């Protein structure tokens, strides 16, 4: 593993949102609260691999996606794209970088402009980045994209409402590919789809990766989807990465109590497998002014005195795996 193979590296990435209370709480002199959506996470993605980012609602997955595309600005931390500091990019350089990083959103009903035809939706990114000039050239490229994502020539002049959810997600993928990116971020790209369609889209992601040598940051809350698509996985819990490692090893032998709990809670589509159960106490902790120490405090079966005091750092445990837990 050399630095040259690392496409994206994230270090100490942090996003805190300050919650401004209403006028009454201000008059009462209450302190403003801080929501620590992403709280110092480190990860890297090698060229050509898929990193799966998994966690429950509110754990900071989507905020992470928005931070690494600079759709929102981080509070602290570093993001390097191919060795360059993404956060220091000028507007012009950032525009170029956007060509290298594309994103596919969760809901294909709100991510496509309902007033534009598919031709417009797919050719506009090429125009913006100066990748196609004449109408014929654009048209040819769009047709090629449609063919590649499994849609037909007849679809080119239609509007998004004429398509089903699965087809729309194909269009969103085609749009991401239209500028020939290196890194594609999928922010829950299959969670709004029915299972038979979800399988088609997952296969499409795989085929495209092979064909174009794409690198994926794939975000999902569904563990079996993450297991299926990822080479490596990072598990997030309330703003922190608690465990990361190769997908097979992490799923076969989870080390962090939270990863274990997540896996035990998945109902597998096989009645002979053990029934899903929750091995943690209580509910997901809040990211608003969290106490120092481990975020899993108060829920964890392996808790000890140190856990409430010091947040466990992500440490190497061998085989490319890292875990953030005091009591392994």
């Amino acid at each position, binding site marked *: 593993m050399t630095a040259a193979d690392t496409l994206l590296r994230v270090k100490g990435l942090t996003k805190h949102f300050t919650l401004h209370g209403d006028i009454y709480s201000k008059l009462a002199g209450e302190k403003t609260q801080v929501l620590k959506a992403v709280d110092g996470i480190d990860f890297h993605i090698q060229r050509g691999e898929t990193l799966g980012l998994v966690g*429950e*609602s509110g754990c900071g997955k989507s905020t992470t996606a928005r931070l690494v595309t600079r759709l929102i600005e981080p509070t602290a931390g570093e993001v390097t794209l191919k060795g360059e500091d993404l956060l220091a990019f000028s507007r012009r350089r950032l525009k170029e970088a956007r060509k290298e990083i594309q994103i596919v959103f969760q809901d294909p009903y709100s991510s496509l402009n309902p007033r534009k035809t598919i031709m417009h939706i797919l050719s506009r990114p090429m125009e913006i980045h100066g990748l196609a000039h004449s109408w014929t050239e654009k048209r040819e490229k769009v047709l090629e994209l449609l063919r590649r994502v499994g849609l037909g020539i007849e679809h080119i002049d239609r509007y998004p409402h004429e398509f*089903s959810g*699965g*087809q729309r997600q194909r269009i969103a993928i085609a749009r991401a590919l239209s500028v020939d990116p290196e890194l594609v971020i999928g922010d829950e790209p299959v969670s709004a789809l*029915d*299972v*038979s*369609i*979800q*399988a*088609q889209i*997952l*296969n499409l992601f*795989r085929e495209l990766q092979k064909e174009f040598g794409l690198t994926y940051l794939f975000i999902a*809350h*569904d*563990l*079996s*989807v993450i*297991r*299926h*698509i990822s080479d490596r996985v990072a598990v997030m819990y309330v703003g922190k990465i608690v465990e990361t490692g190769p997908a097979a090893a992490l*799923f*076969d032998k989870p080390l962090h109590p939270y990863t274990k*709990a*997540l*896996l*035990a*809670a*998945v*109902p*597998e*589509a*096989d*009645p*002979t*497998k053990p*029934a*899903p*159960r*929750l091995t*943690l106490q209580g*509910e*997901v902790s809040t990211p608003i002014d969290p106490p120092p120490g481990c975020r899993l405090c108060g829920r964890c079966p392996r808790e000890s005195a140190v856990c409430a005091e010091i947040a466990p750092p992500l440490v190497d445990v061998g085989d490319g795996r890292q875990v953030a837990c005091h009591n392994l």
Partner: protein
Amino acid sequence: MAETVLALDELTVRFRLRRGDLTAVDGVSFSIERGQTFGLVGESGSGKSVTAKAIMRLIPDPPGEIPHGRVLFEGSNILDKSDTEMRALRGRRIGMVFQEPMSALNPVFTVCDQISDALRTNLGLSKAEARERVIELLSLVGIPSPQKRLDSYVHEFSGGMRQRVMLAMALSCNPSFLIADEPTTALDVTIQATILELITGMIERLGMSLLFITHNLGVVAHACDRVGVMYASHIVELGDTREIFANPQHPYTVGLLNSIPRLDGQAKYLTPIAGSVCNMMDPPSGCKFHPRCSHAMDICRREIPRLKEIAPGHLAACHLHDRGTA
């Protein structure tokens, strides 16, 4: 001997729309025995929720209508009942849990107010008695310190806690039958696990029967005794959960099971079902699944296959199984 609590007999629900007629549920028959959990599984638009609403007589008419079929609850046909009789049935004998607790619960009343409303109307309890009972119910569904949460509003609860409130409300008048329409779909997996455990435990403890509607085959595998698989308004396969998962007979069921990525799975490519669900305004002739089916034959385009028993207690609606019975 097992006693049948609910039996659907050729239930058909049609919506008369300006663009034409849409048959959302077409000749659906199944029965649920006392103490049993029946899972109705299928993808969006397959008719699962409409079936549940028809059982509760919650289909708005117009545009909806039930041209034929019967819904027998404890032996009498629900579709023949008057509105007064239905009011006595809903909530008291049949409880219902909906998918989205935030929109099913009333945001401007406290939890205590809305649950005791049902208790006071249906069971004639006094305000104080109802309050006591609400505390009991909330602790039954695992809400910590119910005395404190009693006077909270719904927005003050998390998603999982809201679903517990919904469940408490559905159970408030001791119904013998519960309909749960995607009760865990909006929830995270760890919360889903607790709610599932809670529902199945409750059913067992209170000796109730349950109609469980979901699109999640994993949930069905662990929560249900029997399963009906719906596709485009028809039940295409019906049988014991273990049998359906071990030995699926309808190509759609097989396709669904092959579409799911597995937790232990090494399969790099899934085998999805080709194409997408047919347009219900203009369904294909014959078997509605034939345009997506790799086994489609001539007869599939002409004739709608009937649900036939292919093994004891295991039914499938597919022409592939005609040869065996012919």
